[in-house]
């Protein structure tokens, strides 16, 4: 009941910001169209529609982290959250109420991303559904990072970190735009210690029906998702009982 009301509020707070709609939905789709247009004039395997779609679907999720950070840090800054802390809302109500709308939006975003990809040539397969469903894991990673930043940092810092840093990390260290093997070295090693490249590799494998190829990437993504979710819960609860 409380969770529903609060989740509804989180949703409204986000979708009523036209800028979020643009970045959350528009931007990934523009990228998708742009890259497939490039690919048509200069074909690169990396930019094949069935390679690029899972990547962009993951990249798009980084905005969910930004939204989470934004909503929470704003609520903290304008005392709305403090006010809610004096009501019967529990930490469970808050955490679910903040994160579930974003997880739902992530899936919606994934679906739209794939629909656009289909319109420009991706062939429809059953594995597509799994690929979309699996987005829930990287989505958990991003939303948890957003929750953590939103709980700890000022709005400015939270938006800076999740908006600039997180989106860039997930863009550069994910192997979406260029093959990490070409760069190699430390860059590649770091990338493979982070979850982004694994999330993309997992998505690609599943979309192309090569289910065994999603390992060990799935374990990396799952591990990060679990750890970050737990961390987000712990930090939020800690913040709730300040001083």
């Amino acid at each position, binding site marked *: 009941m409380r969770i529903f*009301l609060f989740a509804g509020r989180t949703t409204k*707070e986000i979708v009523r*910001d036209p800028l979020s709609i643009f970045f959350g939905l528009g931007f990934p789709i523009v990228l998708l169209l742009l890259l497939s247009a490039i690919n048509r004039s200069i074909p690169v395997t990396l930019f094949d529609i069935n390679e690029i779609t899972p990547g962009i679907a993951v990249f798009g999720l980084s905005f969910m982290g930004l939204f989470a950070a934004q909503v929470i840090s704003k609520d903290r800054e*304008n*005392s709305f959250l403090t*006010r809610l802390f004096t009501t*019967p*809302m529990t930490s469970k109500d808050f955490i679910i109420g903040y994160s579930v709308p974003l997880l739902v939006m992530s899936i919606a975003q994934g679906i739209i991303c794939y629909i656009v990809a289909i319109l420009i040539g991706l062939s429809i397969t059953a594995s597509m559904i799994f690929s979309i469903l699996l987005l829930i894991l990287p989505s958990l990673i991003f939303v948890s990072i957003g929750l953590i930043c939103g709980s700890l940092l000022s709005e400015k810092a939270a938006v800076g970190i999740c908006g600039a840093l997180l989106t860039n990390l997930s863009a550069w260290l994910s192997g979406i735009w260029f093959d990490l093997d070409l760069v190699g070295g430390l860059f590649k090693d770091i990338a493979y210690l982070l979850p982004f490249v694994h999330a993309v590799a997992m998505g690609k494998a599943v979309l192309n029906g090569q289910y065994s190829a999603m390992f060990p990437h799935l374990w990396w993504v799952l591990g990060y998702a679990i750890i970050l979710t737990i961390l987000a819960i712990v930090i939020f609860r800690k913040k709730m009982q*300040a001083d």
Partner: protein
Amino acid sequence: MTIAIEVQSLTKKYDKKTVVDNVTFSINAGELFGLLGVNGAGKTTLIKMLSCLIKPSNGDAKLLGKNITQHPEQVHQLIAVSPQETAIAPNLTVRENLELMAGIQGLNKVNRKRKADEIIMRFSLKPYENQRSKTLSGGWQRRLSLAMALISEPQILFLDEPTLGLDILGRRELWSLIKKLKEKTTIILTTHYLEEAEALCDRIGIMKDGKMKAIGTAEELIKISKAATFEDAFVYFVTGGDIQ
């Protein structure tokens, strides 16, 4: 008469600084208690402890029998707080903000709507009902923030500087609502308007440097301090006068 709020040696320290210093007092059910004191006296900190937002360094308090240190979740079922700062959800409309708060306090859909209608009328919020709250003027945001605390019919209500930034109409609306609520709600309010405290409050506590310097009705405080007016009495207590 039942005691609604019982404060026992409540203390809050930040590092070495004692912000609320061994405060003990009680408030009867249905009483309207005014908490006065100059800036930085510790009023907001006291309210924050009583509403379980921060933990006391020492001492305890009971709200209708529930300990603030042991059962914050039970205390939260009893209270509503209007914080000193305006606290609203910026992208929700006025009505959505009100219905959200009512819902969080446990009202069902029908009652949420009914209560929102009522409070919108009482606070003359009708013309702004469907406006996003971030686009309201400061004073109207303030009214909304206040209305969000008043909507849930709590047993205990904390109002931290409720009339800050309100125009005279807003203040009158608030006063009339407070008088109506008083029948079934215990209210603690802080204010810097002494005439407001004198007119509204059953009893007044005056804080200075974290200590409760004096408690009583406005007349009693005037009498004790041998002052001519309540303002003089207030000045007497916050500039070093003491009952003892």
